[in-house]
């Protein structure tokens, strides 16, 4: 923090145990000493990274290890290419690795995938298994023999240039995935398995960052942060996603890192170095997935809030770091738009197309749709989701359990049971917030920034769904996996709920939460095993 040019973070009144802030975080002081020692001995960057890693508590490493193992288990359970949109994501990586070019929309008639991938998909009966829960994965020795022949057929790995639904996505995640692809030695199944394990690593990184975020936000009771991070690492939908090939998983890690950076900035001020890290993370997010735009909105609100806070303290120079972060973050988007404009294409590619579609609609209809996608319909709104309580039936139930290619669910009674548990946790969480209301008020700018991230993401998902469902009359495709970028907030909610149980009952609430998440994970895996191999 020696480079920080901002004013010291405002002191938060300590009014309760549950939301207490440490005025001088112990690990920050230790970090300064370690850093100074590292520099003095000339170890440079390596030494500083080593010191940074040594500062990570062992509980965080254990939580991250659990997340990795969980992702690995899900990667072994889920049949190849039964992760959501996996064939398209694989095709994108293959296109990059084999031709060095990005996928593009191809007008002429062709197969979306390379002959080799198409043959393996056929050998796995992939198109007939996906979305049809009564059809299990291939099961006979004869089918396995055919699949082995398909894998070894040595057909061309170059496709027609498209990558299905992934075609319009930015390339960064896929560039990274070319490494496990190359290690897979031309065996499609091995390549996919290694790519899934890479995602499991990203899942572990997400939990590591979420752990740090929870500790940063709620430093008063460290073990509650451990419970929060442990519950994230055991969340089964997160495990399922971490065990499949999907750029969403990298977005989870980027979002967790952004939450951590914002929390540190609000607590300790935004240094130039912090601003560069934050800006780089925003840029990485934009280069990872289009839906990041929703998260980015909230992060920019956070930067604005940091700027406002500095202005209040009449320190105009302190506006530089937020501006620097925003500038670095927006740079890839600006560059992309500039290149497109110069080459006569639409400035923002697919986003421009989406914008064009939305421009021709009435704003009230779009707002109604997005509202109803999450909340009960208000009088005067068009009925978009007849017979469905979206918050309960779509979002809650599907977070409780929707695996495979949106085709593996729990029976309804499990959702009802989970609702009781979740309601109890929510009540405890509210209790903790009420008990710490003075601290909440003092940190309202920070909390507003997190709320803006939530809002931005919800609106982004809503806009995409409105465009496809209401305007183009396609199936409603809403998937709770889009919301897993908010996992760090789930961890905070769990930690708060545990603390909301009061000093005496908090450890017991924590123990119940951990075993509940663990059981949920194991039963979800059994559900998936029953669907594909039962």
């Amino acid at each position: 923090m020696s480079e920080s040019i901002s004013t010291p973070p405002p002191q938060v009144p300590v009014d309760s145990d549950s939301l207490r802030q440490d005025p001088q975080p112990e690990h920050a002081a230790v970090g300064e000493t370690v850093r100074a020692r590292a520099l003095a001995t000339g170890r440079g960057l390596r030494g500083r990274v080593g010191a940074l890693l040594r500062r990570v508590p062992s509980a965080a490493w254990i939580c991250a290890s659990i997340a990795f193992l969980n992702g690995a288990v899900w990667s072994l359970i889920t049949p190849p290419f039964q992760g959501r949109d996996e064939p398209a994501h694989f095709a994108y990586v293959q296109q990059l690795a084999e031709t060095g070019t990005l996928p593009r929309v191809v007008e002429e008639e062709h197969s979306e995938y390379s002959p080799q991938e198409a043959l393996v998909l056929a050998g796995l009966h992939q198109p007939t298994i996906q979305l049809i829960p009564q059809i299990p994965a291939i099961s006979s020795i004869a089918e396995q023999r055919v699949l082995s022949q398909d894998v070894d057929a040595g057909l061309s790995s170059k496709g027609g240039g498209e990558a299905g639904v992934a075609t319009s996505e930015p390339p960064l995640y896929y560039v990274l995935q070319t490494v496990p692809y190359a290690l897979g030695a031309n065996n499609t199944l091995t390549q996919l398995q290694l790519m899934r394990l890479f995602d499991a690593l990203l899942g572990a990184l997400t939990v590591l960052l979420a752990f740090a975020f929870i500790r940063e936000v709620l430093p008063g009771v460290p073990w509650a942060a451990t419970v929060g991070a442990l519950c994230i690492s055991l969340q089964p939908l997160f495990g399922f996603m971490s065990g499949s090939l999907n750029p969403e998983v990298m977005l989870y890690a980027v979002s967790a890192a952004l939450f951590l950076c914002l929390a540190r900035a609000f607590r300790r001020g935004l240094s130039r170095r912090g601003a560069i890290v934050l800006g780089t993370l925003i840029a990485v997010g934009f280069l990872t997935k289009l839906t990041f735009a929703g998260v980015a909105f909230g992060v920019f609100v956070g930067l604005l809030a940091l700027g406002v806070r500095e202005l209040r303290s009449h320190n105009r120079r302190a506006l530089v770091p937020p501006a620097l972060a925003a500038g670095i973050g927006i740079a890839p988007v600006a560059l992309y738009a500039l290149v497109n404009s110069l080459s006569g294409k639409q400035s923002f590619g697919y986003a421009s197309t989406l914008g064009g579609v939305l421009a021709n609609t009435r704003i009230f209809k779009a707002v109604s749709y997005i509202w109803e996608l999450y909340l009960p319909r208000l009088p005067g709104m068009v009925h978009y989701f007849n017979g469905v309580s979206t918050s309960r039936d779509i979002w809650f139930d599907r977070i409780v359990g929707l695996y495979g290619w949106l085709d593996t669910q729990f029976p309804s009674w499990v959702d009802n049971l989970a609702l009781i548990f979740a309601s109890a946790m929510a009540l405890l969480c509210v209790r903790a917030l009420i008990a710490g209301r003075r601290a909440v008020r003092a940190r309202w700018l920070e909390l507003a920034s997190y709320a803006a991230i939530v809002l931005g993401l919800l609106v982004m998902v809503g806009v995409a769904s409105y465009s496809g469902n209401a305007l183009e009359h396609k199936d409603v495709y809403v998937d709770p996996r889009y919301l897993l970028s908010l996992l760090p907030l789930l961890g905070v909610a769990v930690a708060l709920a545990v603390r909301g149980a009061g000093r005496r009952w908090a450890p017991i609430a924590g123990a119940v939460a951990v075993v509940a998440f663990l059981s949920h994970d194991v039963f979800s895996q059994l559900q998936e095993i029953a669907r594909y191999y039962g």
Partner: protein
Amino acid sequence: MRATKLTIALCLAVAAVMAVVTLSEAPARVVRGVRANADVASTDGDFAACQREEVLPRDISAVRMSVAAGIGPPVRVRAYSGARLLTEGSRPPNWTAGSVTVPLKPLDRNVSNITLCVAVGPNSDPLYVYGVLTLPQQAAFSAQGQPLPGRIGVEYLAAGNGSWFSRALAVARHMGIGHALSGSWVALLVAVLTGAIAVLAVRLAWRELP
């Protein structure tokens, strides 16, 4: 500290009992039915249809209809013998994918010449009904009495013969097929890794919780 450890032990015991109970149950099997292979109807609204000459096997626990939706609306299934309601069942919204399974009250005998009726709604999203194409006189018919192009795909489910425990080896063998890693040992690996996750999580909670 003691209370926390006791809570962990108690919760784990409850979870273990639930797992044993679940795995002692027999998975559902198809006892009768027709797999869909053609489009029969599609709509953006409510859907209701009946089809005659169905046979309801005894002890069925559910019926699986070939109806697809992104966000499935509520579904109600009724089985009539003449005008008499024999059995019925319903499914709340939020089913998804290419079929919907509706639990039914079981019958104690096979009953033939049944009229099976399905009502889906209220609905405002795309809904697809699949089945087999037939002559109009054999086809399902809408609430207005209009014949559809064929019969709706219906499969009747009943409890299987063996529990999940008794099928463990078969499931393990199946898990070893169609993956990068092949062989029944994959199931063992999954079990070992899951055990490791449980041990790490419980030990961490044990150590950190006051």
